[in-house]
């Protein structure tokens, strides 16, 4: 116990004495997470809409998402390496692939959770398929879609540590090289800060999600 606390304190000390380097790593980590996540959202939401609308597209789309998620993240990174080389960009691609599924499944689930009656009423009132999607299904599905984005982002923060293996940088640099060098304070500094980052993002996104599902209805309105 005392040892653990000691290591933690040593880790914090390491962090504060290497603040400039820490901010560099953090910035890179955030860049990996946000860029890959944004790309995943941009692709997965429309794909989810297509899958929810066309039964025939649904199977293939879901299996692609599933495969991407089932392959261990390390393997995704390893696969990205021969195809795209080393560095930041292949890392983003690998993280993007890995982030797709939660957003995709939640988009489909969200759209399908809109009640039949609501759709029936919208149809009966003369809304076209696009109007139904834009004005009814997507706004009502938004909290569920957003929950998928939240899950995906939090997982992404953890997965991004592995980007170090193919030269993507980020907080993984401290953790992985720390393990190799038995530099526990360095491992601790990298791990704790990443954990905090995941928690902060989770709480922040949860707050947004909460607003979307109750009063946040107005938000949907103003953005629509």
């Amino acid at each position, binding site marked *: 116990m005392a040892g653990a606390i000691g290591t933690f304190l040593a880790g914090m000390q390491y962090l504060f004495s290497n603040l400039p380097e820490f901010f560099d790593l953090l910035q890179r980590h955030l860049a990996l997470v946000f860029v890959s996540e944004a790309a995943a959202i941009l692709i997965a939401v429309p794909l989810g809409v297509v899958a929810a609308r066309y039964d025939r597209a649904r199977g293939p789309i879901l299996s692609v998402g599933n495969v991407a998620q089932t392959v261990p993240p390390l393997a995704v990174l390893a696969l990205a390496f021969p195809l795209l080389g080393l560095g930041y960009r292949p890392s983003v691609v690998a993280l993007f692939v890995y982030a797709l599924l939660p957003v995709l499944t939640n988009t489909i689930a969200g759209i399908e959770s809109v009640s039949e009656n609501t759709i*029936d009423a919208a149809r009966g009132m003369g809304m076209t398929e696009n109007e139904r999607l834009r004005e009814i299904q997507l706004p009502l599905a938004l909290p569920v879609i957003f929950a998928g984005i939240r899950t995906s982002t939090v997982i992404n923060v953890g997965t991004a540590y592995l980007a170090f293996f193919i030269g993507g940088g980020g907080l993984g640099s401290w953790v992985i090289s720390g393990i190799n060098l038995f530099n526990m304070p360095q491992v601790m500094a990298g791990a704790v800060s990443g954990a905090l980052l995941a928690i902060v993002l989770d709480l922040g996104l949860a707050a947004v999600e909460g607003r979307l599902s109750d009063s946040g*209805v107005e938000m949907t309105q103003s953005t629509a």
Partner: protein
Amino acid sequence: MIEFENVTKTYPDGTTAIENVSFSVEAGTTTVLVGPSGCGKTTTMKLVNRLEDPTDGTVSVDGTDNRELDEIDLRRNTGYVIQEIGLFDHRTVGENIATVPKLVGWDDERIDERVRELLDLMDLSRGFRDQYPSELSGGQRQRVGVARALAADPDVLLMDEPFGALDPITRDRLQNEFLDIQERINTTILFVTHDIDEALKMGDRIAIFDVGEVVQYDTPQAILDDPKNEFVADFIGEDRSFKRLDITPVTEVMGPPDGEYAAAIDGNTDATTATDGGSSYDGEALSPDDSVKAALDRLLRSDAPALPVVENGEVIGVVADEHIRASFGRRSDARQGAT
């Protein structure tokens, strides 16, 4: 005016929902489609706004085969109310009501005015406008549902068991309010229900469905007087005389105020008429809106041989047993002997 001509609807899986159905709904009237579940009444209704298309035959609206009309335009000109209401939970009551006007591009001012008008019409306070559907009771939600369907002043209103999910008291209240509204809006209404009492109450005409076909299409009175076959008679139930009394206003059966019961009425009213006006009859007098059933109920409970029908403090007629019996086409000889 909606016309069904030899309409058959068969689903791809081979089940036939309706077969060779023909009837027409006159403009400005309410026609109720009634029958047991699975009889094809909802399918029939959905053929009007083309949520379903017929396999055979034509459905025409104001003389045009509705398959020649653009289905989106057709639906925007046709109000649609369903039992489950289907309000848009992410939109306020006001925005829900404004759905179709927005779709067809009314300007904001006109929409605003129309929403206010409809809230008043449906007896919803203006405060509801900015609330979300989840904050409303079942009855209020269905009021919003009806308001939303009426928003763009549709020529035709389709209602699929609109009051079916409400408790009996709320249902009764909404039915009565809707009867009032119906008189004011002059819309052609097609109303689906499985409840014969509701059908008799709401309909100018009733189409009784048995598996996939219309068995009888007539006015409520005619159906009660002369059910076409055993199915119809069964469907109406044992107490069809009572049902008939319930939908007949006293004004239809009452006798003249100066006839043979004049004395009885005078005696009856004199005793209680210290003041004037309808209320002074102390619950004994009938108002022109009362049903014959209500009249019979009060006759049974009172000693009077006849009751006055009072409108604005004036006796406009009298109702006695024999008037009620006469309305069934039979005279009460026993009663006549007694008086």
